[in-house]
């Protein structure tokens, strides 16, 4: 989902790679090198497990460290296969070829439903389900389920309810990080008066606009309405949607709030919008997820000093916590697959992972104290304190024609709305029309 543009460009490549990826020999063996010879207590000695996920680079290394902990514990040999950005394109041919990996980590819960319909998934055993019940709120269990069966568990989360800011313009304007929406607007006005356009939006990357909408909607309409709207049980013409769009209007309607004005905003993609805040220092705030830290760092800003964040301000009654994240599912009926998923869902596995950088756990029993830095600790704390009100990224729950395609569905309508923020009603009707097409 993130860096969707890059994903699109690489999609052709990924399809080609997927076609070659049928043979399991192309996957690189990892963690297996250190398979311990000491037997006895290890129940899965000699069992081979293949796990596929989209992570590369540092994320892959950290995940492999977690896999090694699993190997040390059980004796199973785990190989990691990278799916590239387009997980669906990688897994599709392997499912058709009846040669799926034992465990796959899916970037969208929507894929759980899709593969469950194709009978490509193995329901989790009672043991694993018990582990989920102990560590996760019921919302997450339902998210990994299809037709009453539990198939998957969210193993890694991305925190999408953050507003990143640069400390200098806040100091220059003499404002404090706001805690509610009205304060945010007031702070933005003061920063604009001081000569810095307060907001840098990534208008060219539609998913950043859906994230903004989701945070405001979760806050103003509450979790129940959020769930209903996610499933299209209430129409997009509902008054609660209007309320949320009006909040966006308060920002998008003011040229002095937007760096480079509306037309510049609509040509700015992610992560260019981040570099407008931290690289060229033209703006003060960017509203996006925890992974902005990586981009801010690349723009030369020190995270925690120059690059700071505050939780997405309350626009209504609920403090919004919207997560994205990856769901682990079993694709082969093997004891090794179940054991690995159980390990990833457990407090023990989560804590191994949490000690590594760049990871956030949705597991409520993984204590934030495990995180390596202060910033991640705070993020983890917000997830735990939000409890049952935490929600998954709505656009990732929608059919991807509505919530995940450039120039279509929600992305397009919200981009049009950013261009012409006066027409709330028109935007709602367009959203409803698109939703009807996608949910038919």
């Amino acid at each position: 989902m993130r860096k969707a543009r890059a994903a699109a460009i690489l999609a052709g490549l990924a399809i080609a790679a997927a076609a070659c990826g049928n043979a399991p020999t192309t996957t690189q063996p990892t963690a297996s090198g250190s398979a311990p010879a000491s037997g006895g207590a290890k129940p899965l000695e000699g069992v081979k497990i293949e796990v596929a996920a989209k992570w590369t680079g540092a994320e892959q290394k950290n995940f492999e460290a977690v896999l090694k902990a699993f190997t040390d514990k059980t004796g199973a040999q785990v190989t990691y296969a990278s799916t590239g950005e387009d997980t669906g394109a990688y897994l599709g041919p392997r499912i058709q070829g009846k040669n799926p990996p034992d465990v796959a980590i899916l970037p969208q819960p929507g894929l759980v439903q899709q593969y469950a319909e194709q009978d490509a998934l193995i329901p989790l055993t009672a043991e694993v389900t018990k582990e989920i019940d102990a560590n996760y709120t019921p919302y997450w269990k339902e998210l990994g389920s299809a037709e009453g069966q539990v198939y998957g568990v969210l193993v890694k989360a991305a925190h999408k309810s953050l507003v990143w800011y640069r400390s200098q313009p806040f100091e220059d304007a003499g404002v404090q990080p706001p805690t509610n929406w009205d304060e945010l607007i007031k702070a933005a006005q003061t920063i604009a008066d001081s000569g810095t356009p307060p907001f840098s939006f990534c208008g060219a990357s539609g998913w950043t606009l859906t994230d903004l909408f989701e945070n405001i909607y979760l806050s103003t309409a509450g979790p129940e309405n959020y769930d209903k709207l996610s499933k299209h049980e209430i129409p997009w013409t509902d008054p609660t949607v209007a309320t949320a769009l009006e909040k966006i209007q308060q920002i998008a309607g003011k040229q002095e709030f937007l760096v480079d004005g509306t037309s510049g905003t609509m040509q700015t993609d992610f992560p260019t919008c981040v570099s407008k805040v931290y690289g060229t220092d033209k703006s003060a705030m960017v509203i996006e997820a925890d992974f902005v830290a990586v981009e801010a760092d690349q723009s030369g800003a020190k995270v925690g000093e120059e690059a700071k964040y505050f939780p997405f301000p309350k626009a209504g009654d609920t403090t919004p916590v919207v997560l994205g994240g990856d769901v682990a599912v079993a694709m082969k009926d093997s004891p090794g697959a179940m054991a690995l998923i159980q390990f990833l869902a457990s407090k023990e596995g989560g804590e191994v992972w949490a000690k590594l950088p760049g990871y956030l756990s949705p597991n409520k029993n993984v204590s934030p104290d495990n995180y390596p830095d202060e910033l991640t600790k705070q993020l983890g704390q917000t997830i735990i304190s939000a409890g049952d009100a935490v929600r998954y990224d709505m656009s990732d729950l929608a059919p991807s024609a509505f919530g995940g395609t450039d120039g279509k569905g929600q992305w397009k309508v919200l981009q049009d709305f950013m261009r012409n923020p006066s027409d709330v009603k028109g935007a709602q009707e367009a959203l409803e029309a698109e939703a009807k097409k996608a949910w038919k």
Partner: protein
Amino acid sequence: MTERLDGPQDPPAQVAGGPSTGPAETPRKQRRLGPSPTVAIVFLLPAALLLGIWVVYPIVYSIFRSLFDSTGSGFVGLGNYAMIFSDQGMLTTIRNNLIWVVVAPIVVTTIGLIFAVLTERIRWATAFKLIVFMPMAVSLMAAGVVFRLVYEENPDKGLANAILTTVHDTFSSSQGYPEARPREGDQSPVALQGGAVVTKQPAQVGTPVLFPIVGVKPEVMPSNAQPAKAAPAGDGLSGTVWFDFTQGGGGTNNAVDASERGLPGVTVEAVRDGQVAATATTADDGTFRFDGLPQGSYVVRLPQSNFEAAYGGLTWLGPALITPAIIGAFVWVWAGFAMVLIAAGLAAIPRDALEAARIDGATEWQVFRKITVPLLSPVLLVVFVTMIINTLKVFDLVFIIAPPSVQPQANVIALEMWRVSFQGGNNQGLGSALAIFLLILVLPFMIMNIRRFRRGDS
């Protein structure tokens, strides 16, 4: 395919038959001189097999697939085709393709023709042709990346806007405080009125006027700006224009605070009964004074010219200009190809026809219109039709140059086909329908080109 193979078979028969002095009953024997049907089939087989696998089968399967929905199991008949002509986004796509087909081939052929004719007359023709032909060596993807940068809105990055702003600034330069404005709300003594900042209450001679301005960008704040001073009361109409924002907050709104700086160089007008009575410019500390004004009340105005943003060029990558912008990139790539082809045709024109016309007193324009173009018309047509086929299936340039937020406005059929098939919806039924639609559009031009080639052979 088979027809083409028949072709080469015929000439030997004719050649053998024509000058032959032998008896007339020989044709049967001479037929046997050609390959026997078995040998022909053996030689044909590999090509036929490959074409079957890679051309015929995909086309047939696409037609078949286009009759099913996204999952591939539900039969929808012609539903996907109906969707192409009913969906609003698809209609935009078709409209864009129409613009492409009408504009791009004509522009490419015309420019190619002009270059070809002109290069005949210049000294460094080869070097010039080489340079114009060069873009053909660049992949369309790379050309797209290049033009994405050319069309960048920021004149510091985008070449197109850099040229526009340079030309514009040569004729009129803007100095001032773009995007600066009075503070919102009722407390401010001044307000925006049609782009200018005016005093809400008429100013009296002898009472200083305050112009608190906010939103002055740090980069436009002149280095000679001094801390703002309240203008002394006294004779004449005076006042202060200053940046009413204390760094770090604090400060009283609409009052000159110690650390706040004046805005030098702002034009101030005193207006009475709709007429500008006097004009002044602010000093380094933001103060201004109109000397020798008669007593009375005036409206004091900072005209719009003080706040005009520097000309930033055009929004090439916005919804309005995106298709012309991409066509520009397309022309850049293909003009060289057209030029080389037309130049080759030009070289083949009989010189005596041109010379005869010149001797008869025709002007160069008449020679060009009445002799060169008609003699070139077969080549021009080939270039034109090739360009039509190329524009119909244009994909990479649109995909790369158009930012995602304007892709719906820049969309073309080939891109839409890929997007619906492999992006998001994964609706390969609709994608196949679009592919077949595109094939049907291209087919007449392909047939036309093949016909022409065959006529050229004979």
